[in-house]
């Protein structure tokens, strides 16, 4: 008889959350709360608000773990997408983003990541690479991308804030995403 220890896969923990196992939810919280809270703080810049969104996110997972379909992607990616939408809805006082992501269905796409973000060591390395890639972008491209992602601004709002023509905003976002695509 031999025995070895391996991390419990997310999908197994999700199965246990669906079965009402509180400790499985606690394990998922320990695994991903730091990653999620960092993003929520970047968007909301308010510890109390970020903790409330984080709690709502995990309560959604507790109540509706069945909504997460492992066939469509990874759990941390799903949590990032839903968490970002909730934070931006709160930041901007609007509900449409939550509806978009959670009910849109056809266009919601997968919650996959081209990289593995379930593994902690790989995730840390990937975070380092994404941050480094962003820092290398021309300032106006990075600004356009950050206004869209972290502040939830539309292209028109970005144009209004930066004073750049709409076509320029489009080009900047496209160029920034292409650079990230090459790096990632």
């Amino acid at each position, binding site marked *: *008889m*031999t*025995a070895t220890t*391996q*991390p*419990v*896969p*997310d999908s*197994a923990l999700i*199965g*246990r959350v*669906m*079965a*009402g*196992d*509180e*400790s499985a939810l606690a*394990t998922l919280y*320990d*695994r991903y*709360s*730091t*990653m999620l809270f*960092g*993003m929520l703080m*970047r968007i909301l810049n308010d510890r109390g608000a970020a*903790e409330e969104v*984080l*709690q709502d996110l*995990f*309560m959604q997972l*507790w109540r509706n773990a069945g909504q997460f379909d*492992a066939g469509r992607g990874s759990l941390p990616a799903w949590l*990032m*997408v839903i*968490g970002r939408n909730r934070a931006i809805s709160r930041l901007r006082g609007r509900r449409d983003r939550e509806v*978009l992501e959670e009910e849109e269905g*056809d266009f919601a*796409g997968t919650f*996959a990541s*081209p*990289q*593995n*973000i*379930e*593994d902690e*060591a790989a995730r840390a390395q*990937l*975070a380092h690479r994404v*941050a480094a890639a*962003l820092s290398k972008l021309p300032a106006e491209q990075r600004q356009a*991308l950050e206004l869209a*992602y*972290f502040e939830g601004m*539309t*292209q028109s709002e970005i144009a209004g804030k930066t004073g750049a023509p709409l076509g320029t905003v489009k*080009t900047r976002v*496209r160029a920034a*995403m292409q650079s990230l695509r090459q790096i*990632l």
Partner: protein
Amino acid sequence: MTEPHANPEDLDLYALGALDGEEKQTFEAHLRSCPACRRELAAARERTTLLGLAAPAAAPRPQAKAALMDKVRAEHRSPATQMAPLKAAKKRWGLRFSLGFGLATAVLAFATFELAKQDLDRGRQLKKMQAQLSQDTTAMQAMGQVTAAPDSAMVTLLQQPGGPPGQAHVMYNARMGMGVYSGQLAPVPAGKSYQLWLVPASGNPISAGLVEANQQNGAMVMHLTPGLVAKAFAVTIEPQGGAPQPTGPKVLVGVAG
């Protein structure tokens, strides 16, 4: 005539949630009839998701977790009434596991290469991790086999009256003689060990190995004799290092099938 594909600029903006106005409506109308653009959008969303990682990781206060778990306990659902979804989820476990492992290996290999170029020390650290991952391959494959097999069964082990709190799960495949244990127990008394037992239909219990009190993040993979049918699983408190047969009190018991 084939409808032209969506403007790539709009695709990225839509993935970010930044496309607005008439352009958004036009884009969505096109998506409804264009599988190729829907695939492109999915890929763009995948890249967009990674942007969140650029934010520095930050820890919420401990009381945030406590508040969450209080709320969860207030809405507690009984495990016994919810076993069916667990079996359905089990089928995805193996697939996700094997895919996750493959991706982890690929990412680690890539990161090793990149970092070795940039920073030799960090590259060496990653190579060490890669070696560890390689050593664990057999165990990970075993876990994947058990969780993917349609004839594997999940057994929930519950605490015993008067005993310390705890709960655990064993996914076991009798045909392969392999199982996966994960669970949470009270800290083990000094000088003692928790030991997992397979109780066969007849004969003495068979040791399935020692388990840690907190085996939530790390599952234990057990290898027993193929064809060994389990009537139940139990965890007992034994002298440190374990015993050939159970001698101490049962802290968790779960009846199979």
